[in-house]
């Protein structure tokens, strides 16, 4: 057979495959938007659910996801960025560092439901934090850690070595160099990583199932030791646990959740590409 014909057939096949891969993504988005949009109203966003959650809004779930995300950030951002600084600026190329890297890769591969088990064992029972925002946030933090560490380390390593040498040569200490030169230059990349990591945490359900998620709460959580509703868990509940749930509320909830997640993703990409365009090195 003519090899140019083979090439044309092959290219055609692969472009079809790529097209078939992304087509469902567009369909999913389009479908959720068209089905969910009619449900969106000021009341839907800001009201408490009532009538067995078959009426009203999703406010407590939105607030809960916000609390969980902030809680996750409080623990995972300082720890993750500091660990990235260690790996990029301090760690020698030795066995210990290789073990740390292996541990990070492993953390990133552990199934989310296993994080849930761990959070249940350590935070809920052993440390007696109960089923609470605190337990859930801590669980999500550890799950988010590898994302923040690896993206931040990458951003730190991208800062030219020469800046460090010059800074040291005019009498800066290592930490002064990190704080005044390396961190500011790596900041957009670090922020991008943080947003991507927290975004992932905000959309997760399995890790909070037994550590902090509440089926239904008549009021907003009042302290970190309260359980909370959360958007992804709420979507799970209303699509599997409640019979005769109006479709509109389900699609509306799904739309709010993906809008939140996709906006954060776009924000992260925007920060990354703007920083790349502005970069002076």
């Amino acid at each position, binding site marked *: 057979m003519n090899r140019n014909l083979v090439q044309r057939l092959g290219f055609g096949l692969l472009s079809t495959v790529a097209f078939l891969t992304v087509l469902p993504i567009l369909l999913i988005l389009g479908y959720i938007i068209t089905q969910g949009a009619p449900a969106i109203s000021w009341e839907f966003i800001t009201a408490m659910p009532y009538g067995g959650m078959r009426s009203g809004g999703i406010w407590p779930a939105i607030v809960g996801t916000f609390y969980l995300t902030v809680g996750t950030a409080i623990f995972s951002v300082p720890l993750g960025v500091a660990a990235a600084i*260690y790996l990029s600026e301090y760690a020698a190329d030795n066995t210990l560092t290789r073990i740390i890297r292996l541990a990070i*890769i492993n953390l990133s*591969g552990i199934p989310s439901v*296993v994080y*849930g*088990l761990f959070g249940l064992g350590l935070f809920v029972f052993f440390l007696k934090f109960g089923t609470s925002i605190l337990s859930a946030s801590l669980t999500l933090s550890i799950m988010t850690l590898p994302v923040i560490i690896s993206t931040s380390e990458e951003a730190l390593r991208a800062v030219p070595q020469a800046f460090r040498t010059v800074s040291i040569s005019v009498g800066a200490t290592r930490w002064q160099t990190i704080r005044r030169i390396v961190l500011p230059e790596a900041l957009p990349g670090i922020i991008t990583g943080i947003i991507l990591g927290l975004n992932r945490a905000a959309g997760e*359900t399995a890790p909070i199932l037994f550590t902090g998620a509440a089926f239904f709460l008549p009021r907003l959580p009042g302290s970190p030791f309260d359980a909370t509703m959360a958007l992804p868990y709420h979507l799970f509940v209303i699509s599997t646990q409640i019979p005769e749930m109006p479709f509109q509320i389900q699609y509306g909830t799904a739309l709010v959740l993906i809008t939140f997640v996709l906006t954060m993703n776009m924000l992260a990409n925007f920060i990354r590409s703007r920083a790349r365009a502005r970069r002076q090195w």
Partner: protein
Amino acid sequence: MEKDLSLGEFIITRLIKASGYSAIVFVTLIFYFLLREGLPTLGEVELGNLFSTRWYPIESYYGILPLISGSLIVTIGAAMVAIPFGVGTAIFIAEIAPRWAREILKPLVELLGGLPSVVLGFLGILVLAPNLRILLDLPTGLTALAGSLLLGAISIPTVVSVAEDALDSVPRSYRDAALALGATRWQTIWRVTLPAARSGVLTAIMLGVGRAIGETMTVMMVTGNAPVLATSLASLFSPVRTMTATIAAEMGEVASGSVHYHTLFFIGMVLFIISLIVNVTASSVVFRQKKRAERVLS
């Protein structure tokens, strides 16, 4: 002043170093708690029961084989979706697509990776399963197949980005040399680029499959949750239940410290060990590894 500065620096440096070791601490802690809560089951449930084919905890049947087989069949199905579509898309993006197509495809695939799994599960219940039922004339659409299709979709972004990285890192000169010898671009892809990126593409597949095994919410929502031993690929068309879904569905209702509780932790331990093996193997493949952790978080 100078003294304060160096004291502050001393403390900060210590904190940074301590944080650096945190990943090791957490992996150890996770494993410890899984062992602590999961191992007692070996003393409480006879091995014959534990490795039997009947999972019915209310009557003290703790056979985990149906759950393992459920995970296995859903994962095999997911791999059959994710490998051709993921690797194919990666080749298309890295080797064939014009610039404009690449700039559309890459963000779209990333977007799929960003979708919460519960959203896919939700659509699986409302859209995919009913259509599968009608299309294939099944008693229910909530089957291993529905789970496989969605898990495949969830694994695709991981496969695409790792495989594309591997293809990208094949030196330009390899391709130039092949083309200079008169090979077509198609021949170059199949005989030069793809073989050169082989280990990276294998890593991509492994990490994608690893993600599929660990995925929880989607499978819990769409696979029908029947703990029946899957014996052949025909089981794709019937309801199954995976290890992850079992933990997620039942942990909420068990008493802490009960046999059932310990057994669920035991299943978690098995999952942990599987992910450990997958990730250690994948990371031992020599290949650009820096972005890995970012992608495979499941």
